[in-house]
């Protein structure tokens, strides 16, 4: 019997798992996909919001600024890229300046520090490429950017380092209440746990409905993005929003932690929870809106587009509470924006909620907040590069020539806990294929390394999802090959 079963290994489930691994508990983290961080966590704006947007008094209002403050330490412990570059909300007329003032006031109540309302001159000083028709804006220096899947992967890895069991490819098909705790029926077998934490993202409603009559519904809402080449990465310095509307925070222009430029998202109601396709309309929409902020964005530099789904609910706030119908079953649901920003605070909040139900837990004195050091070869000084190659020649072999990623780094991220097993899994962890050639040159090499390290045939290596096979078999054999066989 596990003490806790966490359903969903996205940014929320992984963060909770790692937070709970600070205690002597038997924990299992269940993921239906073949990798962690493979739902909403892998396709979002990658922003750590300052916290002025949320309605004061709501969970979002409470947890956003709190989570934001925790980012520095968390990302330092886990060696995850995080940059506090500040965020702007810009206004194009006096009407919008009223919204800016409103945000400023909300921010103060929500505990957002050091905000400032800027005039046009100061705004353009901060962002010289802004369009000339801006009149002013809100500056929040605590706004930041993070690698969202890198963080979730690091959290899952560190959780496993500290004793959590991770089980991928384990969709929960049904849950039954037991005398004490719950029995979970997964693709990979049955699991018993005293407490269940439902962090199933888009599917949190279906999971909850297994133990309770429906109390909430998760409504998927799609956001589409364009990612631009590093050539364009320095076009803006901060995270630039337009004034929020009833549709949300609007289209943002921001640099990513890796130095690309990110533009998006749209906000579209969709009827499927796997509606992850981009559309011509959606991409045109974000282009048009982004050009309202910065006209001069070079859309010729686009290297990829993608879409993500937000897990929204009608109330508009996070749902983080014990199910009324199911004791010891905690929903952590409807975590749409600012879910990523709030994630560290949500994890603490959930642990406290669980303690309130189960009583205080014994501390895990062996908890190690750090994971095995991560090598970013190309960022090392030359002497260290030389030393590393001498120690392990695989660091002397560049596999991804756009991002300069070595074989050593790729093998390392395959061998870690919660390690990569797919081409996109390698890409999310070490970045080969995320550059301008988008894997054109390196994907055959990455597949070869994956097959070798995982000891499987190369034809079994998939791109991302379970059925996303890449190769369909061997080519025809030559006469010589046939004779030899």
């Amino acid at each position, binding site marked *: 019997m596990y003490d806790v079963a966490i359903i969903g290994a996205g940014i929320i489930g992984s963060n909770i798992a790692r937070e709970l691994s600070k205690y002597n508990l038997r924990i299992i983290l269940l993921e239906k996909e073949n990798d962690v961080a493979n739902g909403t966590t892998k396709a979002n704006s990658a922003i750590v919001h300052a916290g002025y947007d949320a309605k004061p008094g709501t969970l979002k209002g409470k947890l956003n600024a709190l989570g934001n403050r925790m980012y520095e330490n968390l990302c330092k412990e886990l060696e995850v890229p995080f940059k506090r570059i500040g965020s702007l909300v810009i206004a194009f007329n006096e009407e919008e300046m009223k919204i800016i003032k409103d945000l400023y006031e909300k921010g103060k109540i929500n505990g957002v520090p050091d905000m400032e309302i800027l005039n046009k001159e100061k705004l353009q000083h901060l962002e010289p490429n802004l369009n000339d028709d801006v009149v002013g804006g809100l500056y929040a220096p605590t706004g930041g950017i993070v690698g969202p899947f890198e963080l979730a992967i690091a959290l899952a890895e560190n959780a496993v380092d500290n004793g959590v069991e991770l089980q991928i490819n384990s969709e929960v098909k049904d849950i039954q209440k037991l005398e004490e705790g719950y029995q979970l029926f997964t693709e990979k077998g049955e699991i018993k746990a005293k407490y269940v934490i439902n962090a199933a993202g888009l599917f949190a409603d279906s999971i909850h409905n297994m133990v309770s009559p429906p109390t909430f519904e998760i409504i998927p809402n799609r956001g589409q993005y364009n*990612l631009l080449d590093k050539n364009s990465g320095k076009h803006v310095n901060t995270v630039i929003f337009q004034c929020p509307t009833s549709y949300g925070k609007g289209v943002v222009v921001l640099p990513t932690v890796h130095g690309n430029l990110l533009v998006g998202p749209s906000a579209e109601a969709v009827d499927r929870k796997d509606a*992850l396709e981009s559309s011509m309309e*959606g991409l045109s929409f974000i282009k048009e809106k982004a050009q309202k902020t910065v006209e001069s964005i070079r859309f010729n530099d686009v290297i990829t587009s993608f879409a993500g789904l937000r897990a929204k609910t009608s109330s508009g706030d996070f749902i983080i509470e014990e199910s009324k119908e199911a004791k010891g079953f905690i929903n952590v649901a409807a975590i749409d924006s600012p879910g990523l920003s709030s994630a560290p605070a949500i994890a603490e909040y959930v642990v406290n909620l669980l303690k309130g139900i189960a009583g205080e837990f014994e501390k895990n004195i062996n908890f190690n907040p750090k994971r095995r050091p991560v090598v970013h070869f190309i960022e090392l000084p030359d002497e260290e590069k030389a030393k590393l190659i001498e120690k392990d020649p695989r660091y*002397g072999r560049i596999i991804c020539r*756009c991002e300069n990623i070595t074989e050593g780094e790729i093998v390392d991220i395959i061998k870690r806990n919660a390690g990569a097993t797919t081409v996109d899994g390698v890409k999310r962890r070490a970045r080969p294929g995320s550059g301008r050639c988008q894997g054109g040159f390196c994907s055959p090499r990455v597949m070869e390394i994956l097959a070798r390290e995982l000891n499987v045939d190369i034809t079994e290596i998939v*791109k*991302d999802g379970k059925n996303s096979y890449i190769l369909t078999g061997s*080519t025809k054999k030559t006469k010589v090959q046939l004779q030899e066989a």
Partner: protein
Amino acid sequence: MLDYDVVVIGGGPAGLAAAIEAKKNGIDHILVIERERELGGILQQCIHNGFGLHVFKEELTGPEYAERFIIELRELGIEYKLDTMVLNITKDKDLTAINAIDGLMYIRAKAIILSMGCRERTRGAINIPGSRSAGIFTAGTAQRFVNMEGYMVGKKVVILGSGDIGLIMARRMTLEGAEVIAVVELMPYSGGLTRNIVQCLDDFNIPLLLSHTVIDIKGKDRLEGITIAKTAENRKPIVGTERYIECDTLLLSVGLIPENELSKGAEVELNEVTGGPVVNESMETSIGGIFACGNVVHVHDLVDWVTEESRRAGKSAAKYVKNQLSSGCVGLNTKPERGIRYIVPQRVRLNNVEDTLNLYMRVDNIYHNTNIVVKADGKLIKKIKKIHLTPGEMETVTLPIHDLKEQQIREITVEIQKEGGINYGN
């Protein structure tokens, strides 16, 4: 610190020819750096024939063509390092490179030859909306899987883009037992060589759908199908012409981009149209002693032209090392005008040209019964009658330099003129 006279970055057809030529012109300390595990570059995966008609007067396959140069390189005792990546170069011609055997290397060169080739444009770059399923490959990546790794990438295939690699792969996939449903081309004409359209599509009854494009991609994990549509003159899809095609594979042959990340680090001036360095008659870039040749300069249609251009670069680098390349002399600029997309070289120092000056260019559209008109400082000096011009095929104009020198010409312009008049267009 390792010292060489000439360092060649890239051991594909351009780098091989340049290194050999530098050696033949009296340079001994040459190093060729190749990032792949074998020399020959992209030729190694081009197992079809048709290479070498101009250089060797015979039809070779890609690997055969490469092999001739590799053998010569070895016979000449030119040093090369495989599986080695240049991390950066400076305008002072210092290089940093790494590999698994030598570790991190600092290399100083008297002259550098850039021959890094090009990369393929991707789905992202052309922003095709839809799912991000597996089964979408650039044609070159698919070619590598099929011809070098020995794996098939799909069974029912659509190819977007009728560039040469797309055409070649249509035939290759068919020969390997796949069904190639169509080659879809955005433009009203093919970007590939006519001989490839005949030999790779017509001979296998593969339809070429001109003025069509892919507007949507469907498939959760693996590609399940695509939607194509006719395109109007402005290249936008026409509403109502959409057609869904069931397929498991989409190959993209939608353009090649010279790979100049290293060049940028050395502050080499790049041309916006070609995407490659601005070069002069000696294939020297804006940085003295840094030369460039092959697809890193502009994308070629035939490897034979790469060889020719690279020999010039190698010979010039040798001259540079021996202080025989004149740099201070009066020069002229070339300028593409109506109908011409670009001209290489962009600058010419006549003192370094022996007898004739070759200008390489591409037109911007299909033209019938036109003239390529060359002017020197506004005065007509050459008119070449052309029955058919296409952007897929590189055009060469040869000019005797004697007159240009005599008249101290400052600018040569090239344009397309319709036969008998000043009108142009198709």
